[in-house]
């Protein structure tokens, strides 16, 4: 889902960069207020964690494999603003060090996989745990749905940006991207559920992080 340079037109690049800059600026302020700048080493290591977790592939269908984005996990464990900040840093490092995702397309990639994925995951998780209760079952179902929606919505945004830039017609790129990622999302959802249940079993206190 990392958009390279060359796919987006100038209007899309400018819009997504402006929105992402605003979102990341907000995240910097909110995280500074909530966690304090002294928690920065922890966030740096968790950004490296997301990066490393993206290296673990899981089978999707028909011999292909996918990897987690990790935005949902970060949003559930650390809150949406910290997740935006961590995902932005992961995407910047991926673009600069591994050329995975373009430099001008960074705004779009941060918008899709950082802002949209983190916030959709966070609020869906909140909604489900509110409906199903903040017990183990609610946490797992919430984690699954949050992760699935975060992947699905991020890929939809990605498709819309590509279509608006005239890179691909809307009627093709939207079903293709959303369809593939609806499948990958199931993997991301299941993995997020397993991770949450492991965290619940071993360090349940970490799930309370964003409330303190």
């Amino acid at each position, binding site marked *: 889902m*990392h*958009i*390279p*340079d*060359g*796919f*987006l037109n100038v209007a899309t*690049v400018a819009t997504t960069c402006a929105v992402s800059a605003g979102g*990341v600026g907000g995240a*910097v302020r909110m995280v500074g207020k909530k966690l*304090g*700048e*002294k928690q*920065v*080493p*922890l*966030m*740096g*290591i*968790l*950004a*490296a*964690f997301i*990066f*490393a977790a993206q*290296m*673990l592939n*899981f*089978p999707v269908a028909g011999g292909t494999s996918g990897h*987690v984005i990790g935005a949902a*996990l970060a949003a559930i464990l650390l809150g949406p603003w910290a997740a935006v*900040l*961590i995902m932005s*840093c*992961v995407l*910047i*490092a991926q673009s*600069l*060090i*591994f*050329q*995975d995702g*373009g*430099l*001008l397309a960074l705004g779009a990639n941060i918008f899709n996989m950082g802002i949209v994925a983190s916030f959709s995951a966070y609020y869906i998780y909140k909604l489900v745990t509110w409906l199903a209760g903040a017990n183990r079952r609610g946490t797992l179902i919430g984690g699954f749905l949050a992760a699935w929606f975060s992947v699905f919505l991020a890929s939809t945004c990605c498709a819309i940006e*590509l279509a608006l830039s005239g*890179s*691909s*017609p809307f009627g*093709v*790129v939207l079903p293709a991207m959303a369809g593939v990622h609806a499948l990958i999302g199931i993997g991301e959802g*299941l*993995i*997020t559920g*397993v*991770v949450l*249940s*492991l965290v619940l079993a071993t*360090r349940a206190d*970490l799930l309370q992080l964003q409330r303190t």
Partner: protein
Amino acid sequence: MKHSFLDQYSEGNSLIHRLDPRTKLITTLFFILVVVLTPVSRWQAFALYFILVATLIIISRVPPLYVLKRSLLIIPFVVLIAVFIPFFKEGEVAGSYNIWLWQVTVTHSGIQVFLNILAKSWLSILSLILLTAATRFSSLLRGMEQLRLPRVMVMILSFMYRYIFVLVDEVMRMKQARDSRNLGGGHLRQIRTVGNMIGTLFIRSYERGERVYAAMMARGFDGQTRTLENPSFVQRDFLFALALGLVLVLAIVLNLWYL
């Protein structure tokens, strides 16, 4: 630790290495912007950009083969996103095929747009590889900080850079352990295994983060980082930026002229 490809060539001593990281960041951004703005079917312009970036790579003394190999690793992902384009652009039909149940038509303009996007992506990737191959990551971060990227982000990135390799090694060890235990079973079981690995990795990373933070506090960390590195924008940077800028502006003018 076998991740030496990063910063492998960044200790060189060429003109490109000696430039202020801000100069390199801004000129790279400008270069990519100009490449992306170039209209379809301007092959002369793309050739010019290629000569430009190739010259810079040669000046930097980063082995061209290394840059080429790194760029070719990314191209499959670019093709994956662009693969629909030749089939769904409207225009003069170049060929029509029957693949199984689908009637597939390829148009000339579709192929043109496809190649055009591929060329733009590749040129951008080449310039990004040059940027990061000829600049130490710490200098790059210092440059981004001077360009007003929020300090929290610069610090997160610098910690990330320090710990990526520790955690990637950890992942590799876990993968090896998993594979040597002959991971089989259906998709669900494999996904559960990967989930448990990521969960374990999360808890280990988190606890490592806490330890690092405690160790830093014990040594008087106050939320500031201090470095001896203080790149300055000198005449050399000005001349380089001016020269590159002029070539790119000339390219824009020529593009508009012959539109």
